[in-house]
């Protein structure tokens, strides 16, 4: 039931985004804001607080994104928040990206990096992931300082972790296993 609802919201957002002139930028902005909501508990709780009037929640969204994102992006996020689905925003945006990529015969790879990747790096990474997975991969980069260094790529259920954080976690597990 929840998945159906998320798919329905994703389809609706995708339809609206496609009607916009800069649909790709709108998708990227939605993706980045969804990651921000996913990683920031306070922001997620505030936007999901049903004790706050919907207008107040929409005002917060406009304060956060106003001037930094396209109006279409602000409007879509505001619509989701007003509908009381801010907590589902990351899943809705992920479903939107997947729907759009599937429509183009591609698969989305969520790549986490401690630094921004330039276009050339993203293209090479997309090719490498496509060769590694045998699928036409589209890269979505999420800047995550907790990665420390290196990259973490997730394509569907497959995770290719080459981060410094992963190295440190392996070292921690090795210490724990020796205990």
């Amino acid at each position, binding site marked *: 039931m929840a998945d159906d609802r998320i798919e329905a919201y994703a389809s609706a957002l995708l339809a609206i985004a496609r009607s916009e002139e800069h649909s790709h930028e709108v998708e990227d902005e939605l993706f980045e804001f969804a990651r921000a909501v996913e990683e920031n508990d306070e922001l997620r709780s505030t936007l999901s607080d049903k004790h706050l009037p919907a207008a107040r929640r929409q005002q917060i969204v406009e304060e956060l994104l106003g001037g930094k994102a396209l109006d279409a992006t602000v409007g879509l996020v505001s619509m989701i928040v007003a509908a009381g689905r801010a907590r589902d925003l990351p899943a809705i945006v992920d479903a939107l990206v997947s729907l759009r990529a599937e429509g183009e015969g591609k698969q989305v790879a969520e790549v986490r*990096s*401690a*630094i921004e*990747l330039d276009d050339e*790096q993203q293209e*090479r*990474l997309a*090719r*490498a*992931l496509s*060769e*590694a*997975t*045998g699928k036409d991969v589209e890269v979505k980069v999420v800047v995550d300082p907790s990665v*420390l*260094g*290196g*990259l973490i*790529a997730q394509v569907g259920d*497959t*995770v*290719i*972790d*080459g*981060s*410094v954080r*992963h*190295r*440190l976690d392996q*070292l*921690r597990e090795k*210490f*724990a296993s*020796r*205990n």
Partner: protein
Amino acid sequence: MRHKLAAAAAGGLVLAVLWAAPALANVEEIGVCVAEELEVPEEDVTVLEEEGGEVEVPAQAADAEHLGEIVETCHVTANPILPAKGELIWGILSFAVLFFLLRRFAFPAVKQAMKDRTERIRSEIEAAEKAKTDAESVKEDYERRLADAKNEAGRIMEEARQDADAYRNQQREAVEAEIGEMRERARAEIEASKNQALADLRGEVADIALAAAEQVVEQSLDRDTNVALVERYIDQLAGTNGANGSNGG
């Protein structure tokens, strides 16, 4: 038995008559003897004082000279045992009649009484024998029951002792088992606590070391290093076609 009783009764009577008759009949016999010696009728005899009693003598001959001799002669010739014939006959008749009456009426009653007494004594003896037998039987039964009771008491005591021993052994084994379990549990808990403490200590040491390592890594990971790491990741990924799962990078 009956004949002996009759003979004894008859003998007693004869002796009584023989002893009583001379005292009563001797005077008269002497008187008659004197009358016959003097040839006088019996009605004319008189009584004279004589040594040892009175002597009847004929009245007209009382003063005769040889009366003394005649009396002495008669006195000597008189039978001191046998009574006069009349007395004897009457005595025999009386005895016969008495014996007949006794035999006819008294003897059956006595016989019946003796028989009853004999039967009673026999029955009493038999009852006494029976009582004695019963008493012995009761005694034997009592002794047997007493022996059984002693045996039963001994058996119960033995069983109680065995039960007590078994219970004591069971309790001792249970306590020993419980002590063993407690000791084993305590040893395991001590071992687990020791291992946990060591693990915690190692974990803390590892956390400290890793935190220090992270700090060092964060400080040393500048943008150029990060770019180099990204490039290496992409190159390694491109060189490992078809790799799935975690990649060391």
